[in-house]
């Protein structure tokens, strides 16, 4: 009888306890590794080189620009046989002291020093491909017949390419990998055209250093959108090297033209 009573008490206790919330806050700190965060992207038409230099914070800390901004980093860019100092301009941005003319095919090497951390990266503005031809192409998208244009290009350099209408060139999707030199590729405009007169359509071709590829593939990783199933625990891949540093340093080449010029 006594045993039965004990068992009964256990069962009642268990039922009551099992109603508790199974998601709970944890009073624990995650291990913290401070990282130097570098972000620099520039086009051939830029008059200055600029780079954002910040630091990371413990994962549970709220981010503010003030907390992450680093004002005392030493930033230099080496190119050809020259050195250009980048000076803190405000917020997290460091900008080159003097204006300069950037060139395709030239390597720009970045060096950022802050405390015991040294970040290095290099990028080369790739040479644009030759446009061999442009053809009008009818496609069916979202249930409608639409027009787009297919470019046939011959690569002169490796890189990540995107061709878009100049009015729609701000998004970061639609890049394609050019992984062979002297090879023909067919590139389609990223968005369908609504204006059927090619005279009215200008396009922008962007060719970014091929080091952009791993970043492009992983750029949506590491988002802090919460939940155990939303995050695979993968990091964005950059091309900045060094201990406890992360970031990108990439140069791009541009061409703006009119569809009509190349249309066959």
């Amino acid at each position, binding site marked *: 009888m006594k045993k039965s009573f004990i068992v009964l008490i256990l069962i009642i206790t268990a039922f009551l306890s099992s109603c508790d919330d199974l998601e709970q806050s944890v009073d624990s700190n*995650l291990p913290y590794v401070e990282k130097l965060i570098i972000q620099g992207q520039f086009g051939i038409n830029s008059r200055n080189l600029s780079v954002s230099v910040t630091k990371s914070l413990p994962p549970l800390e709220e981010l503010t620009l003030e907390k992450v901004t680093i004002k005392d980093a030493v930033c230099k860019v080496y190119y050809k046989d020259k050195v250009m100092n980048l000076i803190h301009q405000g917020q997290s941005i460091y900008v080159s002291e003097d204006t300069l003319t950037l060139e395709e095919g030239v390597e720009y090497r970045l060096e950022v020093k802050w405390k015991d951390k040294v970040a290095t990266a290099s990028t080369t503005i790739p040479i644009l491909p030759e446009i061999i031809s442009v053809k009008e192409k009818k496609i069916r998208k979202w249930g409608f017949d639409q027009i787009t244009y297919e470019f046939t290009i011959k690569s002169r350099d490796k890189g990540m390419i995107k061709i878009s209408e100049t009015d729609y060139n701000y998004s970061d999707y639609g890049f394609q990998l050019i992984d062979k030199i002297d090879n023909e590729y067919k590139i389609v405009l990223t968005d369908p055209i609504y204006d059927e007169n090619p005279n009215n359509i200008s396009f922008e071709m962007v060719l970014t250093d091929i080091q952009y590829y791993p970043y492009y593939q992983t750029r949506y990783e590491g988002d802090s959108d*919460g939940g155990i199933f939303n995050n695979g625990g993968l990091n964005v891949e950059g091309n900045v090297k060094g201990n406890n540093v992360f970031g990108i340093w990439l140069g791009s080449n541009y061409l703006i033209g009119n569809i009509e010029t190349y249309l066959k």
Partner: protein
Amino acid sequence: MKYILLLIIWVLPFSVLSEEKYSISGIVNDDTSKEAIISATVALYNDSVINKDNFVKGAYSNKFGFYSLPNISSGTYYLAVSSVGYKIKLTKLTVANDDLRQNIQLESVSVMTQELTVTADRESSPTSSISSISISPSFVSKMPAFGGEVDIFRTLQLLPGIAAGSELSSGLYVRGGSPDQNLILLDGVTVYNPSHLAGFISSFNNDAIKDIRMIKGAFPAEYGGRLSSVLDLTMKEGRKDKVGGKAGISLISSKLTVEGPINENSSFMISGRRFYFDLLLGLITNDAPTYYFYDFNAKANYKLSDNDVLYVSGYFARDVFGVNENDNDDISVNWGNSTANMRWMHIVNPELFTNFSLVYTDYIFDSNIGEEDVIFNTGSRIRDIVLKGDAQYLAYDNHIIKTGADITWHNFNAKANFNESNINEADFLGEGNINTFDIALYAQDEWKATDRLDVNYGLRGYYFQQGNYLDIEPRLSATYLTGEGVRLKGAFAVANQYIHLVVRNNISLPTDLWFPSTENILPSRSYQGVLGAEMNIIDDTYLISLEGYYKKMDNLLEYRDDAEFTLGIPLEEQFTRGEGRAYGIELFLNKKIGNFTGWVGYTLAWTKRQFDDLNNGKEFYPRYDRRHDISVTLNYEFSDVWELGLAWVYGTGQAFTMPTSTYYWREDYDYYNDKYQFSDRNGVRLPAYHRMDLNFMYKFKAYNLPWVLSINIYNVYDRRNPFAWYINNEYDPQTGDYKKQLKQITLFPIIPTLGLSFEF
């Protein structure tokens, strides 16, 4: 004179042979059910006093209960036969100028004291038993079980060297290997994905199982095709004395087993189980998704003659999931295994035992998502047809030679298509079909080199058509019994695996595809070495065992970090190849006799993986790596009425990938997005896992039948074990701001359940 000499030389061999030698052989059965008894010890003595001085020779019954003692001179002997849970039986017999067939029937006894036996503890045990453990299904049934659902795999997870992937998984992670590296055999048939509820419950019904054997590594040449371990399950044959069975009901499922004679030469066993949580949920809400599973085991045998028995067995399991809205199934997912096996046991003569099998196995996964008029259908399927034969040659005193061959035809299929009712045909997006076959041959010798030294050596050869692979696997194991009663053990084995299960996020799901080796996907290969020692202590009531192992694995497969699961992209291109290694020591203390039985197991282990394309090429721990793993099991009979099963586990926290810092990332137009930098792959440890489960069993009689009421309490002290951690942005009503908060998901708090069963 010369002719006389020649005559003597010619006659001499015959005169030597004139001292004729005979065999004693037979089958060991249970005296009531007539089920064959596996691994019974058979020993022949000169006298009814059983001691070393009178010992002539010994043997073990095989999986069919058959034993053979060769090369016996004419005379009178005493045959002692014993097995776990049975009274020793001593039979006087006379060998008189002929082979003797002596079947033995053993009387079962209350086996509270002997439910679990490590095969290696038996005197003169076969060396194939290194790293081998045998557990009786009745012991499994007494262990605490989640929801009252007795689970063989969950009990095996309590053994040293075998880890649980997570609380959600019944998968067996044996000595650093993943669950697909385990060869799981049911009556000799390979079973793929043997789980229900997406891996939560193993799909084997304990009531239908007669024998459970686990070999944790360095297995002998008779087994192959997997890297890590062998789980060899034998189904009940069906009792031959009367129709009987067992029925059970718990909060989430019901099951029924019926067995009995068909006629004097044949018997059957059929067992079924149905998970009905969906029905209970349906009483509460109409919106709940439909989910249930069921499985059936069936076996029949027919004794054709004293030397021939035909067995037919089958196994069928299905999981069914559906979301029902507006009377249309928007989502329906089904998966499961079917196997069929026809086996012929044939005793050619007392020295040659054979069995031949024709096997069919079919694993199918099928999902339909969509409305009534347009359904997106995906599916995968593996079908194997196997023809195999094994032989045991028992003519030598100190050798048992085993050999065998099998040929397996595999068909792998994966498909995706839209079924549109208005066009009345399927729009196939893609379908992959691979047909291939493999051939395996083996030969092994269990050699008793001296009274103290046993050696098992063998070779296994493989040919896998896809990729044209031909591999030879050497296997060697040895035990040496010292004068102090310590059994020293050592083993080495090479194993290859040609069929791979590539799992996403370390969580095994029925959607995961088994993929064969191809020209690009090389076979996985493992090299494993084991060293150990064991001995019985305190009047043989305890067995203490210590084993150390090192396992190297090549050509392991994982999905690449940037794997794309878009239709049309060959899956093969999404894999990356790497290597692994695992090493550790296992301590096992097993109490076999007394009022309470059970064991304490401790494992100190390291499991590591290295892939050039993952974690920047750096070595990492898989999620299931446990530095320390402790398990305690206990079975205690308070009285004739009350019995207690207890299990307590402790394990180092899971390896987990977590953010180690947060940073601003400047997007277009000066917009800053906050992001996380994560640790190395599985570079952070969650807190330790520990839990105690209890099972109170109350035995009573009603309607002239024996009943057992089981009161299972899972997670008795309500430990909030972490399944996962994540960072959540929580709204703070006091400040009106969002604040980051580290959150923990716990799967199961304390959960009590009741179960009721009876036998008839």
